[in-house]
């Protein structure tokens, strides 16, 4: 089976400029710095990491909302990096995005119809309104949004319903890949599971592939087949969902997993945690050697000298640590 999405050595950098007229580059923020992975059709890759690790930038870089500095992106056999702006406009139908905040991602002046129909008009040009309307209604059905809401505005909906509108819009052009950037983080607890279930249903129905970006490990575990853990612009561990939770290899993954509190008081009283020191270091000047060496609980001399390779530790379980 060939991968639907293949990313190789992708780098997205942002120059940090100073000065009003004569701008000079004072530093480079390497938000995504050499990331490679593959995503199979119909599967979900969970991308986890803390704020500032570059997970959202990676998601946006893949669909070229940011221009990568180097690297290769292939979606469905086509080279995305080499596409011209015109080509990209057409091909973007195949890869869509769902954003975190459904209060910000929907235009408050547009009705549900306008919002969901916009990609259809963009792709097809002016078309018979009835054809468009039929499509919009079908899309509303598939995200379980009552048809009678078609003339309503975003402010009339709750957060969960708004996220359904955003999902319907993403589905409009029958994409194969959807980048979900924290799609449930802004929602209430009792609504999160509804949206997760909907995403899983839609995946089965339309054979969608998801890149599911989230800081919430529990949600990622529920929806993903494979999980990649990011730290300071690099993937530090990549494995199947079961493998990652059963035997996490990278010390950062181990700390991340142990930091999540379980909704179970008895377990919480007995659990042993790995507490990480400090905060994320300044991403414009990441530490030499292993990027995690400032916070790692297993750090050895070698970690300050050499950057560890991202290698297979057995059974397609990749980890970038000298000790694994």
């Amino acid at each position: 089976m060939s991968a639907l999405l293949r990313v190789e050595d992708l780098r997205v950098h942002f120059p940090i400029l100073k000065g009003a007229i004569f701008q000079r580059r004072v530093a480079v923020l390497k938000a995504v710095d050499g990331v490679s992975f593959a995503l199979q059709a119909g599967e979900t890759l969970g991308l986890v990491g803390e704020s500032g690790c570059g997970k959202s930038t990676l998601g946006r870089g893949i669909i070229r909302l940011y221009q990568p500095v180097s690297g290769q992106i292939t979606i469905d056999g086509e080279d995305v990096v080499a596409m011209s702006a015109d080509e990209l406009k057409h091909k973007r139908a195949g890869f869509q995005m769902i954003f975190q905040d459904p209060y910000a991602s929907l235009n408050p002046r547009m009705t549900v119809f306008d919002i969901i129909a916009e990609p259809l008009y963009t792709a097809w040009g002016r078309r018979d309104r009835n054809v468009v309307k039929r499509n919009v209604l079908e899309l509303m059905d598939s995200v379980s949004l009552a048809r009678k809401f078609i003339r309503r505005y975003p402010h009339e909906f709750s957060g969960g319903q708004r996220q359904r509108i955003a999902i319907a819009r993403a589905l409009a052009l029958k994409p194969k890949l959807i980048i979900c950037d924290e799609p449930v983080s802004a929602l209430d607890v009792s609504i999160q599971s509804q949206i997760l279930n909907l995403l899983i249903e839609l995946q089965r129905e339309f054979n969608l592939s998801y890149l599911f970006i989230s800081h919430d490990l529990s949600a990622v575990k529920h929806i993903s087949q494979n999980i990649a853990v990011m730290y300071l612009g690099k993937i530090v561990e990549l494995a199947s969902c079961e493998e990652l939770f059963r035997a996490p290899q990278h010390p950062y993954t181990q700390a991340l997993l142990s930091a999540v509190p379980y909704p179970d008081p008895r377990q919480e009283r007995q659990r042993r945690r790995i507490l990480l020191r400090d905060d994320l270091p300044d991403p414009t000047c990441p530490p030499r050697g292993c990027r995690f060496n400032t916070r790692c609980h297993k750090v050895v001399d070698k970690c300050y000298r050499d950057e560890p390779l991202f290698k297979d530790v057995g059974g397609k379980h990749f980890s970038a640590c000298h000790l694994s």
Partner: protein
Amino acid sequence: MAVLDVKNLKTYFYTREGVVKAVDDFSFTLEMGMTLGIVGESGSGKSVSVCSLLGLIPKPPGRIVAGQALYRGNDLLQMSESQLRRVRGKKIAMIFQDPMTSLNPYLRIATQLTEVLAMHTDMTASQRLARGIECMNLVGIPNAASRIHDYPHQFSGGMRQRVMIAMALITDPDILIADEPTTALDVTIQAQILDLLVDLQRKIRMSVIIITHDLGVIARLSDRVLIMYAGNKVEEGAADDIFYRPQHPYTQGLLRSLPRLDVEHEELPSIAGSPPDLVLLKQGCVFAPRCPQRQAVCVEDRPIPIKRASSQHTAKCHWSADA
């Protein structure tokens, strides 16, 4: 001994759209040295109820319609602003969700941290500074003696939340109220702050009220748990009772719908529908429209809390007694 005893609190907001019954039935007893967790989704009234106790509700449109909140025998709700000011910040301290916006970016930490001492005590400036450094050490900020002269932007998110906690502890309060103290933080930083809170409570005997939507945080910190839904307290009990023997269908649904790291599950049974509009609340149980166990009586009558005989465990449901 109870430090705080709240009975039948009702806080309504009188808006153009109608009366928003943000808190419609809220009671609890906070024992000395205990941690009470208040759980609820956005709009369930968990923050409003606690803010009502401290007189932090904007009036109008807000109004405390009924209730009593006895702190060491004195009713907080009946106090004048000046009486309340002697309690608030000194005896009952509060930390908020977002450490980025709760600190003034123009003032040095020393100024903000010790301001409360200038208000409530007659300490000299050097005594206040010493106490500030002592508190920063207590919450685990390294090089406190020099860092106290820094500005907020020189601190990371986790460190700012530590500053907020230090600020709350500086007057040796009886009660610490933490409103979503870790929601804005990353998990590894959250773990640090939760550890700090557990550790602090061991060192200083104070009572803590923690407000959050994260049941994991509740499980980690709380002795007792109170579940809010649509302005009503729907269930209250010891943490183990709530997590292992939930009585109210909302609590049961909430616990089942959580994706979890420690449990394998195929499907997530979610609660259908969404929380109600508080202006349009009808008679009957507030959870009835979404409840899988709804009967005719649930739509007609608002249930009264039913106590389980075995323990201090109540659920506001017609059916919980025989569940």
